[in-house]
């Protein structure tokens, strides 16, 4: 595919402060074995994009470790492949605050200059979805748009803890208004953090926008909406934004629905890849009781698990009960302990007979490495 992928790895870092305290959004664990960035990287490699620049700030050690050589996404390439790129400011030592997208894009101009590809796909890492960028590009070219933006229609009235971006489109799918809102009614168009445009167009307008002092891409687009043809492309499969601990828990538990698993993980030719660690398959003991749950590899299950997502290498001891919870990698739930509406980070140890309860709208988060 004649496009280079640009990934903003830590847009939204402040959305789930509990989990992103020591990691960026890109490396937030998800769905038993994934990190959020796996979706965008897999979508890109599945669409035939083999040159990806991940924009990162400094503390990206987790991400560098997770990506490794890029082999897991078949992107350990000699030409192209995955590169972690740091935006440069005019001051050669200065780091740009990554939240300022326009400055950031200006700071990676040197990377874009080195690429031969005609198109650029921009994506954030705070969304879960299995998207064909190849279809997107096809659509973009067919619609003859300057910028194409992915959106989905809300299927019901919803409200969120934080604001999300809504689009208003005319009958030709041209975007008329862009606004932030903390709720949407049925049929409202939600921006999905993905854009496609020509590289030369991007370069030209970035320089212009920075020159005029714009900070937000959407403000610039709004201002120059007469000159720029921004079109929306509707995405109809499962997708979800993660912008709070609550939405994080909800999106994980969405995986308990077969339709969601089908949309995300069981698409032919479009699997979701992640880094591998040679876990053995999971073992169930004589007294295991598991119901409506996602269990990753390397677990040893001797207790009860209901309506939960259990990550790789977790041990559930006998008599323990885990419900409506997320248990991250290598945690251990002790004998007869009870967890309900809990999100444990990695390497948590819950002792015997402990009882921890959160609530659906207020899940209880347990820090990485905590021993309770």
């Amino acid at each position, binding site marked *: 595919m004649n496009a280079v992928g640009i990934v903003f790895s830590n847009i939204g870092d402040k959305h789930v402060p509990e989990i992103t305290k020591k990691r960026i959004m890109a490396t937030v664990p998800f*769905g*038993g*074995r994934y990190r959020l960035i796996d979706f965008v990287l*897999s979508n890109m490699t599945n669409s035939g994009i083999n040159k990806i620049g991940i924009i990162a700030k400094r503390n990206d050690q987790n991400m560098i470790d997770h990506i490794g050589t890029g*082999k897991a996404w078949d992107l350990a390439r000699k030409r192209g492949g995955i590169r972690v790129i740091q935006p440069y400011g005019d001051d050669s030592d200065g780091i740009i605050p990554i939240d300022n997208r326009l400055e950031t894009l200006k700071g990676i101009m040197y990377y874009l200059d080195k690429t031969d590809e005609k198109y650029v796909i921009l994506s954030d890492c705070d969304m879960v979805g299995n998207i064909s960028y190849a279809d997107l590009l096809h659509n973009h070219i067919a619609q003859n748009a300057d910028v194409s933006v992915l959106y989905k229609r809300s299927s019901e009235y919803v409200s969120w803890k934080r604001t999300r971006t809504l689009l208003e489109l005319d009958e030709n799918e041209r975007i008329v208004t862009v606004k932030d809102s903390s709720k949407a009614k049925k049929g409202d168009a939600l921006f999905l953090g993905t854009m496609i445009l020509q590289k030369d167009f991007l370069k030209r307008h970035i320089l212009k926008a920075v020159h005029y002092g714009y900070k937000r891409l959407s403000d610039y687009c709004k201002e120059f909406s007469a000159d720029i043809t921004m079109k929306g492309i509707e995405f109809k499969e499962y997708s979800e934004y993660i912008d709070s601990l609550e939405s994080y828990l909800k999106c994980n538990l969405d*995986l*308990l629905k*077969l339709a969601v*698993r089908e949309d*995300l*993980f*069981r698409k032919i030719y479009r*699997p*979701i*890849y*992640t880094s*591998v660690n*040679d876990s*053995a*398959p*999971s*073992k*169930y*003991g*004589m*007294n*295991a*009781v*598991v*119901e*409506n*749950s*996602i*269990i*990753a*590899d*390397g677990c*040893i299950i001797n207790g009860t*698990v209901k309506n939960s*997502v*259990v990550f790789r290498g977790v041990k559930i001891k006998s008599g323990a009960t885990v419900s409506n919870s997320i248990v991250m990698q290598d945690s251990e739930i002790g004998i007869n302990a009870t967890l309900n509406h809990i999100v444990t980070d990695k390497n948590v140890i819950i002792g015997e007979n402990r009882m921890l309860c959160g609530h659906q709208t207020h899940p209880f988060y347990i820090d990485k490495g905590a021993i309770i």
Partner: protein
Amino acid sequence: MFRKKKCVAMLLAGGQGSRLYVLTKQIAKPAVHFGGKYRIIDFTLSNCINSGIDTVGVLTQYQPLELNDYIDNGEPWDLDRTYGGVHILPPYQRVHGGDWYKGTANAIYQNMNFIDRYTPEYVLILSGDHIYKMDYSKMLDYHIEKNADCTIAVLSVPLEEASRFGITNTYDDGRIYEFEEKPTEPKSNKASMGVYIFKKEALYRYLIEDEADEYSSKDFGKNVIPAMLQSGEKLYAYPFQGYWKDVGTLQSLWEANMDLLGTSPKLDLNDHKWKISYRHYPDHPHYIGKGAMVADSVIAEGCEIHGTVVNSVLFSGVTIEKGAVVKDSVVMRNTLIKEGASIDYSIVDVGVQVGQNVKIGEEKVNEGELTVLGSGVKVKEDTFIHGGEIVDSNMYIKYLEKPMAKGFAITRKTDGAIHANFLERGVVE
């Protein structure tokens, strides 16, 4: 430019594995699936890299396509090296024509130029069809310490089973004075594991000699080892303790899978100090549905379990529908077991479809025999496949309980006296 390597491993992966029947119809024995996520060869390759041996020649001949593809560049085992790494070595033609491998020794003989590139002092000969975790570097230390020409890894087996193995008879210091292939009256219980370390120079000498002998069957156990003993070379037995299993028969393959179960399993794969690596497929974590029951089992990724699974090993991507029951069985990749079906004491190969209310096999507790469904078999609803039957691939079985028309029938006997009858044959190959 190649770097010198202290020890190069040569892995014999050529076997057709005919006692595994339908499981090896289209794949070489070392590529047979095992333990939910693995192939048999994963154990030997992982042993190599974990032992610090990073140069491995894999000698293939029979149906190598899937095996080649599985090993590919060796990346899953960290054997994708610029110097060394894993290399597939099929037979090839020289200026004056070419030969298929005539035996284990001949296979190594034909690839001496591969070994030469790394100028090793030692050559480790391995077999690709055993399940075990072994640190070859310790055996190499032993070999060097003894200044042996050849060291054979041996395992203590029950004396009554010893006549099924190659038995080494040794002095107290471990030196072998006799090697007997399947002796009727074994003098010791030290069975060869098919793992040899040779001084390269000694190996070459005997390979060249053996090649020249037109009466030789070009086999290590039958020809090379006895010849070395006869010439008075220093051969030592290296005692190995731990799990080891030759999975050359359907019965032993089933048993080895079952050895993963229980609270302290005979074969532990959760050992972080000795990881068994494998090629990954992008499956999501498995899902256990409402009303499902899973006990004393191993379940891999990508499964969707809505029925009952007891004392079984399920590979990636298996779907068990509501009301279906799998017991004492091994069910391989991408198999679909439909509503109400039951599988008892069986091995089900990859991509099998079992229709509604089908009954496969007989309960082990009732002294049933092992039942096997080959890859891609589709079993129509309400069919009953008897215990002990081996069903071939790509056919659609109907009404097997009725008396059968003639057509395509195999009634080979396995070790465990298993037979199979066929009604019709689908399109394979």
